[in-house]
Structure formats: C-alpha cells, structure tokens
C-alpha cells in the first residue's frame, strides 16, 4: 500500500513541478510564469530525477507484488489520469504546440498544413512558442482530421484548446487500457501504470497512444469485424507511419498463420525494430517506447523481460536529464544521454547475474 501512496504522491508533485517549465513566450500563462526550470537548472534536474525514480520504484513494487485486485488498479489508473490531466504539457517536449498549431492552420485558417508553414501566419501568437513553426505538418492526415475535435472543443481559447488536446489524448489512453483489459486483464498493469507511458501520454500528450489505440483495435477485431479491423490499421498508419511495420504480422494473423501469444511477440519485435530504427530519421525519443510496450504487455508471463523493460523505460526517461541540466544538445549531452539510458537495464541484468551466482 505504501508503494500505492508513493505513486500517487509522486504524481501530484510531478503535476505541480511541470508548471516550472512554462515557456517564457507562452503569453497565455504569463501570470503563473516563474522561469524556474530555465534558471534553476540543477535543482530542476534533481527534482525531476527524484520524481522519476520515485515513480519507477513505486511502480516496480506495485508490479512485483500484484496483491491489489483489478478494481484497485482501475481506480489507480483513473486517479493517475485525473492528476496528470491538469499538468503542464510542454515539460519534456513541445509536440503539443505543434499539434495545436497544425490544427489551427487546417481548421481555423483553412489552409493545407502539408503546404503552408505555420510561420506564414506572421502575426499569429502561437508562432511565438511553436517549435516546428517552420515545418509543414509532421503527422499523418488521420491525426490532423482527429485533431479537429480538440481544436473546436477549445472554442478559440488557447488554454481551453491546450487542455482539450490533453483530454483528447487521455481518452485514447483510457481506450487503449480498456482494449488491453478486453484482450488480457493481466496486461493492464504493466502498460497503464508504467511511468514512461503515463508521463509521455498524460503529461506530454504525445499522439503515439492514438496510433497504438487504433493498432490494438485492429488486432482486437481481426477475427470478428475484418473490414473494420483493416480500416483501424490503416487509420493507425495514417496517424504516424510507424505501425506500417505491423502489416506483415497483421496479414499473417488474418490468414491464421500466426496465433495466440505469437501475434504479440511478433508485433513487439516489429515495433521494437522501428523503435531502434528511429535514430536514423531523427533520434531515439523516449515516447517511441509506447509502440512496443503496449504489445509486450500482452505477452503472458515473461516477467524477467518485462522487468528489464521497466528498467529500460527508466533509462529512457533519464535521457532528458543532460539537456535539463546543461540547456544544450551538444558537447557531452548525446553521450551522457545514451549512458543514462543503458545504465538501468545493465544494472538490472547485473543484479540477475549476481542472484544466479549467489544461488548456485
């Protein structure tokens, strides 16, 4: 129960801490702007590290000792969603501003976001804080279409739009958890409460969860509603192209060549492969781990592999530390970032090795 409370307490603190990252150009939050994260870099990094560790430790113990019945887990998921829904999203990534501005270009200005740059709207206040204002739409057409919902729900008010986007992403998180529970109830805990998943989805509001929701929907209905299932997979691919790597597994499952847990094993391998390829395009972003974590959770047993992935998730969340500390992406930052990423899983493997030696 201590881990349960530690988890919730860390979430509340993280939610409050996130407001220290308010962008100086975000005129809509001028009243609560403190410049904390950019002035107190060392302290910010320390708090971040402590909160992430606290979340992972409590999650690890919740995962290791699943005495809690499913109702308790469900309540914890709901509580997590509510707490993090009110956090400030541009803490670790500015992608939410790209989503909002792209939606504005499409639905407010009624321009093609694949042709017109946000920066072309010279006096638009959103350009002040949108990082990819000099790029055309970075996401698939289905995502742009879906983003109409939070855009119009925002009623042309920035703060309302920001939280509409967060709520929209949170709905897909709940939807994904619901699908996991429908496929295998035991899969829920590993995915839904993994600190990487909740921070990247409920705090940073990355649309990867939407892509994964449609991919899972495709697999869930693969036998019962084939046409719907195919459309769901196409929808997923048209959000972010990543799930195109699921097509071979999907076709093999559709043709009954692959069954049972093998479906999720192959899906995990496919998505992990894309994850590893991502540095070729840009870099290894922590939220890309959501792509394979969703499928890993559906593989029954394999506790050691899942524990290793929890440690890897921790390593991925530590990748933010060098930039948070130094404020630049160059110099030692790339090397330290990669070191921090691999240290936790290496330590875990080392502890397993020590245990084996001790037993023998």
């Amino acid at each position, binding site marked *: 129960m201590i881990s349960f409370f530690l988890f919730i307490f860390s979430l509340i603190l993280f939610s409050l801490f996130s407001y220290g990252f308010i962008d100086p150009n975000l005129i809509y939050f001028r009243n609560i702007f403190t410049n904390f994260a950019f002035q107190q870099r060392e302290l910010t990094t320390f708090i971040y590290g402590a909160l992430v560790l606290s979340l992972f430790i409590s999650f690890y113990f919740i995962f290791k000792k699943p005495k809690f019945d499913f109702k308790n887990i469900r309540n914890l998921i709901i509580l997590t969603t509510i707490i993090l829904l009110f956090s400030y999203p541009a803490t670790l990534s500015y992608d939410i501003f790209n989503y909002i501005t792209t939606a504005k270009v499409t639905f407010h200005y009624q321009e*093609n976001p694949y042709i017109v740059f946000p920066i072309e709207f010279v006096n638009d206040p959103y350009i002040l804080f949108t990082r990819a204002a000099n790029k055309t739409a970075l996401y698939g057409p289905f995502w742009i279409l879906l983003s109409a919902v939070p855009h119009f729900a925002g009623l042309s008010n920035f703060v309302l739009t920001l939280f509409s986007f967060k709520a929209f992403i949170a709905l897909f998180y709940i939807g994904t958890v619901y699908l996991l529970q429908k496929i295998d109830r035991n899969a829920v805990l590993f995915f839904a409460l993994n600190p990487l998943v909740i921070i990247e989805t409920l705090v940073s509001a990355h649309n990867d969860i939407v892509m994964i929701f449609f991919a899972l929907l495709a697999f869930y209905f693969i036998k019962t509603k084939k046409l719907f299932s195919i459309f769901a997979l196409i929808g997923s691919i048209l959000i972010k192209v990543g799930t195109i790597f699921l097509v071979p597994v999907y076709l093999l499952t559709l043709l009954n060549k692959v069954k049972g847990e093998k479906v999720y094993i192959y899906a995990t391998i496919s998505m992990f492969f894309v994850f590893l390829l991502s540095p070729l395009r840009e870099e290894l972003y922590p939220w890309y781990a959501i792509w394979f974590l969703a499928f890993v959770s559906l593989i029954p047993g394999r506790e050691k592999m899942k524990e290793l992935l929890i440690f890897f998730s921790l390593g991925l969340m530590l990748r933010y530390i060098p930039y948070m500390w130094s404020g630049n992406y160059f110099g030692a930052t790339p090397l330290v970032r990669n070191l921090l990423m691999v240290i936790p899983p290496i330590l875990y493997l080392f502890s397993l090795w020590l245990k084996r030696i001790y037993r023998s």
Partner: protein
Amino acid sequence: MKIGITLIYLFLLASLFLVTAKESFAVSSYVLPYPSVMPGNIFYKLNLIQDELLRFWYFGDFGKFHYNLKQSDKYLVEAKTLFEYKQYLLAHKALLKSDLYFKNLKPILTKAKEHGKDTSEKNVLLAFASEKHIEILTKLRIEVPQVFEWKPEGKKPKNLKLMESLGESIMIRESI
C-alpha cells in the same frame, strides 16, 4: 593642341564604353525554377494532368497563392526556353498561361486579407517575383521578333504579335 588631344582621348574612351556596353537589367534575388518537361515530350500531358490535380491539393488562400505563383513561374521558364529555341507558337502559349496564373495572385491576396490573414510577407514575395519576371521578359523583348507568322498545315497563316504579348505580360506584372 593639348586640349584637342585630350578631347580625342575622351572621345575614344567614350566610344569604347558605347561599343562594349550592354543593356543592363534590374537583378532580383527571386529564384525561378529549372525548366520542367517541354511540349512534345510524352510526359508533358501527364504534367498537365498533375497540375490540374494539384489545384485541389493547394486549397486555402495561401495554398492558392503558392499554386498560382508556382505555375506562373513554371510557364514563364517554359516560355523563355521555347523562345530561345525559336518555338514561337508554343512559347507564346506558355507565356499566356503564365500571365493567366500571375493575374490570379493579387485577387487571392485581397481575399486572404478579407479573411483576416496577414499578407504583408506574401506581398513582398509577389513584388520580388514580379521584378524577376519583368527582368526575364525585358531580356526576351530584345531577342524575339516583333511579329511571327505561323503557318499551320491546311489553315490560314496566323500572325503572332510577340512583342505586343511580351509588353502586355510586363504590364500585368507591373500593375500589381
């Protein structure tokens, strides 16, 4: 005597300038595209179909602005290339097409402004484009004949008033 020699020197120097001087044009930093597929190429018709399809892709005020400017640039370059190869009929057609797209630009920006969009940067871009187009058209005016008689097979010959057309094209660009 000395004055006479100086005057002769000055006259010779001035003559040298007059002989070697070339007509100069205002040079704009605006960059035109490379020539694309030319009429007669099997892909030219496919290119025309692609252009028509792209018209729908370039929706919105700024989208339409980009589309029309791109097309106007493209056909101007096509006209220039064809004029250089003395393919006057085809060049004349391309020039008229370029004019047609260029004429659309100002009304599009007016509409964009009515829709509450800041068009100041687009107006600057249009001014640069116009300057570059005029630079090309002025050069062409020196190179092409005043009138070209086109004799299609089995039909009446037709006079293409090339100089007049180029003059009109320049006027269209100057009027923005």
